[in-house]
């Protein structure tokens, strides 16, 4: 990969591992503001949907997730899937860090260990060839 493409790819991956987790954290923050959902009647469901989509954090979260998704699609237009995808493993660690520092969520050592193992597992899954059904890249 040429150096300018490499820089562009790393920058896009950085945006992905910031905006994806931040989007989820904002959705979490927004939903805590909405409060626990009850779905006992159609009127209650409608009221809940109106409340959800009137919450600023929800829209910020959705915007961040769309930014993540667009960046992901763009980076795949010039970089290899097998190069980009393993970076998503970092997102799980990022979510835990952001939840801890921005939402003040208590995370036990066992949960940190679990997140670390998930990161490793996702990295291995993403690093294996994406095409296995035949053709020149088949494993």
């Amino acid at each position, binding site marked *: 990969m040429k150096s300018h493409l490499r820089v562009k790819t790393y920058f896009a991956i950085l945006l992905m591992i910031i905006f994806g*987790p931040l989007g*989820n*954290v904002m*959705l*979490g923050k927004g*939903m*805590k503001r*909405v*409060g*626990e*959902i009850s779905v006992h009647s159609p009127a209650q469901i409608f009221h809940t949907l109106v409340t*959800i989509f009137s919450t600023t954090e*929800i829209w910020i979260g959705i915007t961040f997730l769309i930014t993540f998704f667009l960046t992901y699609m763009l980076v795949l237009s010039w970089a290899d899937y097998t190069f980009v995808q393993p970076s998503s493993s970092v997102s*799980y660690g990022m*979510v*835990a860090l*952001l*939840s*801890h520092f921005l*939402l003040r*969520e*208590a*995370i*036990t*050592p*066992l*949960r*940190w*260990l*679990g*997140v*670390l*193992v*998930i*990161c*490793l*597992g*996702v*990295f*291995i*899954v*993403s*690093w*294996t*060839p994406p095409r*296995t*059904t035949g053709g020149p890249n*088949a*494993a």
Partner: protein
Amino acid sequence: MPREIVLLFFVVCAGTMGELCISRGMKMVGEVRNFSPRNLLYVILQVIRVKWIWLGFSLEATAFFSLLWVLSFANVSEVVPVTSMSYAVGALGGKLFLRERVTRERWTGILLVTVGVILVLIGRS
């Protein structure tokens, strides 16, 4: 806890099945090579005629609202790591539903993800 598990089940399974349905639907539409506005409009018209795509969108919407619901009472640091189970469900679905071959390395990664999710769930504060 049971309500959380049920909602997480919907987030993971409906989300992954939605992706598989969209993938199957898009395979029926075929690869998009021409990105001119006229051709993209033609592709969109083809896409909305495929039942798998509608089923996929419905499942994705179910997963998104289940995610919002579970986030209304559960911690983000618990919910998001658990959604990584979609890698396991995706591999199983890809193997059974799309007849894809899953490599040994991929199964190893999926096993690690599953162990990690169990640790996250039992590691409550």
